[in-house]
């Protein structure tokens, strides 16, 4: 049977403890949620960097039309080909199609390969079971499968850059008929990649929801859950119910592209001046409805885990309870529910009638209310707190006004009348990047600095963390603030020449041309983008250097936090808790009157303190 050559104590009847797993079992094919969380995290960060790189190339090309991209231009020239076998970047200058490829893939990679796997897959997987007092996720092997599907999807997406004609080039939104009539296989690769990614998310969502429902430790009632867990719970439902219609649409678009169906191709479609060889009878609008049915809940998938992270860090670093826990919970549930019925505010300009536009405008306005409630609760939570300005707290604090700007600038877009002017302009780019970039990504940076000591037993460098913060904060605003102005001046999205074709320089007498000032802002933005890139270097070095060389923590709870994730050994062993923990109190019992310390862990039973 089993050998007894090692002296490790038995923990329960788990067979996995009876022999030491090999390297493959422990690090590559692990079913442990913590290992899977780290796998998701590292993979997602790699894709985040790659997506960032794509953006840098685009911003350069916009600011210097017709000039070769420095350093990587020659690489593009040799590696990236058109369908006819020529280079997609002759002389190192990106051609229009390649620009569109980079644009479509920047969006796809950032949303589906970077942010969601990081916010949900990485942080969710690592922290949620610890926070609820569970030994692992409910379905560990399904968890491993979900990571593997993600990797396969990522490989398919990455590989598509190198096929003739390159990767998908019809926007991350892949509207038909363009996505079907472009003469490359990139879109088919995109669709296959998406099927894998959607499968990964669905498996993850089932796991998260089942785990939170079923594996809460005794005493961990619903209203004692840390807000982070509530946020991940709602996110799970958004992924579970909103992704399948996109999967259906993806299958239908794949049928259009590969089997010649006309799900989304209208009758009488002409391509390149000739009637398309398709049956017609389809509807381009159907794609948009199905895409945005996912697309809108997807953006809440991007923000809710971030709000969860920020809430935990604020509570811990103000040394007081979060203000309005119940409001936070009901608001996040409200956001989850409403997010399913606002989607057509992305489609105001498709010719929908006034009644249906009014419906979506109303629900869109209503959904801003719970978002504001959450932000307000987090702001008020700062009042009267003993604020510790460490690196995670700096990022968490910055999240608040940055998400505020992002959210508020969404309101004009939500009004159909204002959206007539702003739709598809740089204003939209600025709005959603404010929410996701100095919004979500800052929150996720905060989370990395915060949970790093639990994962590794060492702290990341505070000094370089603050350098990372200051650089990122300044340059994020340099990059995205000007885009609001450009958008209001009428600069349209997705133009490979940055709008030069509509500039007053080219058309001095035309009204509404883009002024020199607007065009010059591209250079300002490029400076910001490069500054932002440089600011990430200390972070990358800090992250990897500190794993082995960071300051060792003195105890398992260096931040003196109350939640159960900090009441485990460091790093938590397989099975997390030696004995089943018991939640005796609310999640944020900081500075309880009469308590010996300014924090009372959630698994500490009542003794002398009045509660």
């Amino acid at each position, binding site marked *: 049977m089993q050998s007894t050559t090692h002296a490790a104590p038995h923990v329960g009847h788990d067979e996995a403890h009876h022999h030491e797993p090999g390297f493959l079992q422990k690090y590559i094919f692990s079913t442990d949620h913590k290992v899977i969380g780290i796998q998701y995290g590292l993979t997602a960060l790699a894709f985040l960097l790659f997506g960032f790189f794509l953006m840098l190339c685009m911003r350069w090309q916009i600011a210097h039309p017709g000039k070769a991209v420095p350093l990587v231009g020659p690489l593009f020239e040799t590696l990236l080909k058109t369908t006819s076998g020529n280079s997609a970047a002759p002389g190192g200058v990106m051609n229009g199609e390649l620009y569109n490829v980079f644009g479509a893939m920047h969006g796809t990679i950032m949303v589906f390969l970077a942010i969601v796997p990081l916010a949900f897959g990485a942080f969710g997987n690592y922290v949620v079971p610890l926070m609820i007092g569970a030994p692992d996720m409910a379905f560990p092997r399904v968890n491993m499968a979900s990571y593997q599907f993600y990797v396969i999807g990522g490989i398919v997406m990455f590989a598509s850059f190198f096929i003739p004609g390159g990767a998908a080039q019809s926007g991350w939104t892949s509207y038909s008929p363009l996505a079907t009539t472009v003469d490359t296989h990139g879109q088919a690769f995109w669709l296959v990649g998406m099927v894998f990614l959607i499968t990964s998310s669905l498996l993850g969502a089932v796991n998260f929801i089942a785990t939170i*429902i079923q594996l809460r430790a005794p005493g961990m009632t619903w209203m004692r859950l840390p807000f982070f867990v509530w946020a991940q719970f709602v996110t799970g*439902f958004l992924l579970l*119910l*909103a992704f399948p*219609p996109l999967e259906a649409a993806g299958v239908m678009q794949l049928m259009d592209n590969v089997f010649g169906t006309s799900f989304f191709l209208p009758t009488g479609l002409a391509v390149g001046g000739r009637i398309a060889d398709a049956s017609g009878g389809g509807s381009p*609008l*159907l794609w948009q*409805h199905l895409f945005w*049915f996912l697309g809108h809940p997807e953006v809440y998938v991007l923000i809710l885990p971030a709000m969860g992270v920020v809430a935990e860090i604020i509570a811990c670093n103000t040394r007081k309870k979060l203000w309005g826990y119940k409001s936070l919970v009901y608001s996040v549930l409200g956001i989850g*529910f409403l997010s*399913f*019925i606002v989607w*057509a505010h992305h*489609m105001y300009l498709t*010719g*929908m*009638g*006034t*009644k*249906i536009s009014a*419906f*979506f405008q109303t629900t869109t306005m209503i959904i801003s209310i719970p978002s504001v409630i959450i932000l307000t609760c987090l702001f008020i939570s700062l009042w009267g707190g003993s604020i510790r300005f460490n690196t995670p707290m700096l990022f968490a604090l910055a999240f608040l006004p940055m998400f505020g700007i992002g959210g508020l600038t969404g309101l004009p877009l939500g009004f159909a009348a204002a959206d007539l002017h702003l739709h598809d302009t740089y204003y939209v780019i600025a709005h959603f990047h404010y929410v996701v970039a100095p919004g979500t990504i800052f929150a996720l940076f905060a989370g990395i600095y915060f949970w790093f000591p639990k994962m590794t037993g060492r702290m990341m460098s505070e000094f370089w963390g603050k350098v990372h913060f200051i650089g990122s904060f300044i340059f994020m605003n340099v990059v995205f603030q000007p885009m609001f102005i450009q958008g209001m001046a009428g600069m349209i999205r997705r133009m490979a020449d940055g709008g030069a074709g509509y500039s007053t320089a080219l058309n001095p007498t035309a009204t509404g041309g883009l002024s020199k000032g607007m065009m010059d802002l591209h250079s300002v933005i490029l400076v910001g983008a490069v500054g932002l890139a440089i600011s990430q270097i200390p972070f990358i070095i800090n992250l990897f250097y500190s794993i082995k060389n960071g300051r060792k923590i003195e105890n398992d709870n260096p931040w003196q936090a109350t939640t159960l994730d900090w009441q485990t050994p460091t790093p938590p062993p397989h099975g997390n808790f030696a004995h089943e923990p018991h939640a005796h109190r609310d999640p944020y019992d900081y500075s309880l009157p009469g308590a010996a310390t300014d924090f009372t862990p959630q698994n500490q039973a009542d003794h002398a303190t009045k509660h």
Partner: protein
Amino acid sequence: MSAHSPEDISKHVRIYIIVFLALLVGTVVTVGLNYLHFDSKAVTIGIALFVAVIKATLVACYFMHLISEKKMIYVILGFTVFFFAALLVLTLSSYGDLPELTTTR
């Protein structure tokens, strides 16, 4: 589900057989009614979907034990049905609400 007594199980088995026969009858009825060729399209669709819904309810309630399931499952399914309805109704309405139909020129 915990172990049931033999009487319980045979009662359940009897229900399963009855539902099975009802489903077969329902299938024959659907096909038979189809040959009647009603003039109104709405009636044709209505009858076909009505029988389908009855059959689906039988499968869900008895084969899938939904009729004796826990509240948690009902909540999950309730939200799902609502969101599916929202997808269908709102998308159909947006197709039907076109500016040409609402302008007063």
